[in-house]
Each structure stands twice: as C-alpha cells, then as structure tokens.
C-alpha cells in the first residue's frame, strides 16, 4: 500500500489537460509559421542579410552629430510643444461633454445617447494620430493647425474613456446627499460629481499631454509641423548627422515630458 502511494508522482495537470495544452501550443506554432510564410513572401532576403553592413554604414554617417543644427530646431521645438499642449486643451474641451454623455450615471439617455458617445470614443481611439494628421493635412493644408487638430481628435477618445470610467466609479452617497438638499441636476453634477473626479481628470490630462508630446514629435513626417518636419527634410537630403541631432532632441524631450508628468501626477494624487 505505502509503496504504491509513494510511486505516484505529483503532477501539475491531468493527462488530458496536458494533451490539450500541447495541442494549443501546436496550433499556435503552426499559425505563427503560416503567418511568417505569408508575411515574408515579398521579402528580398538579400536586403535582410546585408542589414549589418547597412547599419554600420548609416551608423558611420550619423556620427558625429551636427550640433550647429540645433538653432534651426528651436522654432520646430516650440511648434511641437504647442501642438501637444493646444491639442490636449482642445481635446479636453470636446472630451468632457462626451464623457458625461457616456457615463451610465450621468448620461441623459442610456439607450440612445450613450452608444453614440461610445462610438465617438471608439473611432477616435482606433485611429492613430499620424493617420488623423494624414487626413487633416490633405483637408486643411500642411502646418501646425493640422497637427493640433489631429492630436485633439486622437485624444478625445482616450480622455473621454478614462474620464467616463472615473465618473462611473464615484461614490453614489455624495450624489444622494447633494440631491437631498434639493439641488437641480446641473447642481448635482457641479457639487457632487465634479469634485470627486477632479483629481482623476487632472491626472488623465497630464498623462495624455505626455503621450501627445511623444506623438507630436513625429507628426511632421506627414506634414503637420513640428520637429518631424525637420526630420523628414533631413532624411530626404540624406543629412544623417542632422537626423542624429533630431533623434537625440526627441529622446530628451520625451524623457523630460515623462519626468514632468510623473512629478505632476505624484503631486496631485
């Protein structure tokens, strides 16, 4: 008896579950191989195999960076900052009403208005700001304005989604207390809902601003102003030392904005 008990070894899964796991992995690997075959149909392997040489070649062209180029980058830098900041502000103006319409507890009509607000949020979120910029450059012409609107349109979904989730999570007893004083609907929102979501709102805004700085550095690639415009010019003229300077500047900007937003969010929460 004791002998038989000691020879049964503990196993994590039963045999059938083990087999199911293996089958699952097999399907995943097969699917991966299939996708890989389809994807690499048009790949020219000669270009892939000489990539290390290409990398070394570009690397040697990129150093030393042309530091004298920095003065030309001050105006684009200012534009980039404006695209991100003004775009975020414009997005907030449009996102706040959408968020209140989308939240279950503040929406005037859960059946009709809420799905519409959710549709706005989803379509804004699923299109990247570069694609928005591509559209807007074609419509309102190249320049900073297209960048601002692109950033704003992309940010609406993000801000509204996080904000409506925050609104849905508020403490209902405060709303009840303010309602009990005889407050009107708008007064309830003003005195019971807004104070509860204000810290979350500030946090979301700063977080989105940080992401927008990151995105606005490359919007110029499609003609929407800012640092990306200079990047595009430098690459088209094969001025790799300038490209290095721009890359470094973008890196520093991104790190700085991340630091600022972390500090501000830390101060708020």
């Amino acid at each position: 008896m004791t002998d038989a008990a000691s020879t049964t070894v503990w196993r994590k899964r039963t045999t059938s579950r083990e087999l199911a796991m293996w089958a699952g992995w097999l399907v995943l690997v097969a699917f991966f191989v299939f996708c890989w075959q389809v994807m690499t149909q048009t790949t020219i392997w000669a270009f892939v195999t000489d990539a290390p040489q290409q990398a070394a070649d570009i690397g040697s062209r990129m150093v030393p960076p042309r530091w004298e180029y920095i003065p030309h980058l001050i105006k684009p830098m200012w534009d980039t900052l404006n695209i991100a900041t003004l775009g975020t502000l414009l997005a907030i103006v449009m996102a706040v009403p959408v968020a209140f319409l989308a939240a279950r507890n503040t929406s005037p009509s859960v059946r009709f208005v809420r799905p519409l607000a959710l549709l706005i949020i989803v379509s804004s979120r699923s299109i990247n700001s570069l694609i928005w910029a591509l559209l807007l450059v074609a419509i309102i012409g190249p320049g900073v304005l297209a960048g601002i609107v692109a950033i704003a349109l992309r940010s609406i979904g993000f801000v509204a989604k996080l904000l409506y989730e925050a609104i849905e999570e508020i403490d209902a007893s405060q709303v009840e207390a303010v309602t009990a004083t005889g407050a009107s609907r708008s007064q309830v929102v003003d005195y019971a809902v807004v104070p509860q979501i204000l810290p979350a709102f500030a946090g979301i805004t700063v977080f989105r601003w940080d992401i927008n700085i990151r995105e606005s550095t490359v919007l110029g690639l499609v003609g929407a102003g800012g640092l990306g415009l200079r990047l595009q010019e430098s690459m088209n003229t094969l001025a790799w030392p300038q490209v290095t300077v721009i890359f470094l500047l973008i890196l520093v900007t991104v790190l700085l904005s991340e630091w600022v937003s972390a500090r501000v969010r830390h101060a708020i929460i």
Partner: protein
Amino acid sequence: MTAVAATETRFAQTWSRPPFIKRRGLRWTLYGGALVYLITAISSVEVNWVRVWEGLDRGLRFIKGFLVPDFTSRWGDIVIGMQESLTMTVTSTVVGVAISVPIGIGAARNIAPLPVYAVCRAIVALSRSFQEIIVAILFVVMFGFGPFAGFLTLSFATIGFLAKLLAEDIEDIDESQAEAIRATGAGWWQIVNYGIQPQVMPRLIGLSLYRLDINFRESSVIGIVGAGGIGATLNTAMDRYEYDSAAAILMLIIVIVMAAEYLSGFVRKWVQ
C-alpha cells in the same frame, strides 16, 4: 445664554468650495503663467485661412467618401495590405513575447542578480524610449521596404512594453508561495516554474493579447514610412486623392480594432 448666541453667530452663512490648488500664490502664478503661455502659443500658430477654406471642399468630399465608401476599386490592394498587417501583427507579437519573457524575468529585482537586472532594465528603457515610427524609419533603411521591417519594429516595441509590465508583476507576487517552493529545496528554475509562473501567467496572457491589439493599431501606422501593411495602402490612397477608398480602409481598421478589443477583453475575462 449670550455665550451660546455668540458661538451661533460665528457659523458662516455662506459657503464657497475650497480651490483646487490650496496655496494662493502658487495658484495665481500658475493661472497667470498658463494665460501668458496660451496667448503666445496661439499667436505663434500660423494658419493659412485661404488654404483652410479651399480645403473644406476636400473635407466635404472625404465625408461623402465616408458615407459611400469604395471597397471595390482598390480591393486587391486592400487585401494585400490587410494580409501584411495581420500577419505582421501575429508574428511580431509571438516573437516579441518570446523575447520579452526572459528579459522580464531578468528585470525583476526579486529573482535576478544585480548585473542581469541592470542589463535587462537597460534593454527595456532603450526599447521604450524610441517610438515605433522612428524605429521603423531606421529598420526600413537597414532591411529595405516591406513588412519585414515592420515586423522587426513591432517586435522591438513589444519587448519594452511587455518585459516592463511582466517584471513589475513578478516583483509584486506573493512571496510566501515562492518561499514555500524554496523550502522544499527547489533550484532557481523550479522556483520560477512552480512558485512564480502560475502567479503571473493570467496577467501575462492578458498583456500579450492587449499587445496584439496595440500591434495591429501600430501596424496601420508604420506603413506610412514604408514598413508595409495597411498603412502603406492608406497612404497611397490619400496621395491619389481617392478619399472613398481611404474611407473604406479606415472603416476596416476601426472594425478590426473594435473586434480585437472585444475579443481580447473577452479572453482576458475568461483567463482571470
């Protein structure tokens, strides 16, 4: 009696809500600074209103394109672009996850020795600090145009995202379970396999699916700089002023993103 009356009169008759920023000096400096910035920023934005006015016509055409999207005339190109985007998404997510698991384990301070930790954190920081589009530019120059460069870009971006979150998750595990496994005399591999892996697996699956979703979205963008996928098709459609085809592509992207988001949310709920 008079004392009571005095205390009663001390109650405030009106109430105003406390300001969001408590310190008065800081508040007014911030408001003033914001105002000055806004004025200078808005005045420095150059807008060619004539061009905007002319463009409204195109905007109208674009909205018309959205109402009557044209799926048929560029259908062949759209299929190829979608095929590239979808396969690129799958392969890059698989490869990215496969690479980021060891890096994520290495970047968790509670199970990795300091030198390994430092190297893995450096890799994560490097991958996170460059945006996809810039990495894509470099990879297109190195590996030539097409989805292969896109695949490399997305794999690289996946590493930074997934390894960081995985490492944070491993650092947050319930130590007592790992401790229990360690007490049985298990080696490092066994601790990872039996003490840590079961705890982080649901989240790892959830994050991988979330990243699959992100990778598809990104794959529609990096085509603009030549890294293949539906973005390239979209860019071509825009360059040819074929707004109805562009609208069709955008609608397809939105539908696929929504489907992916819904599915990944469903699977994540099922796993957890």
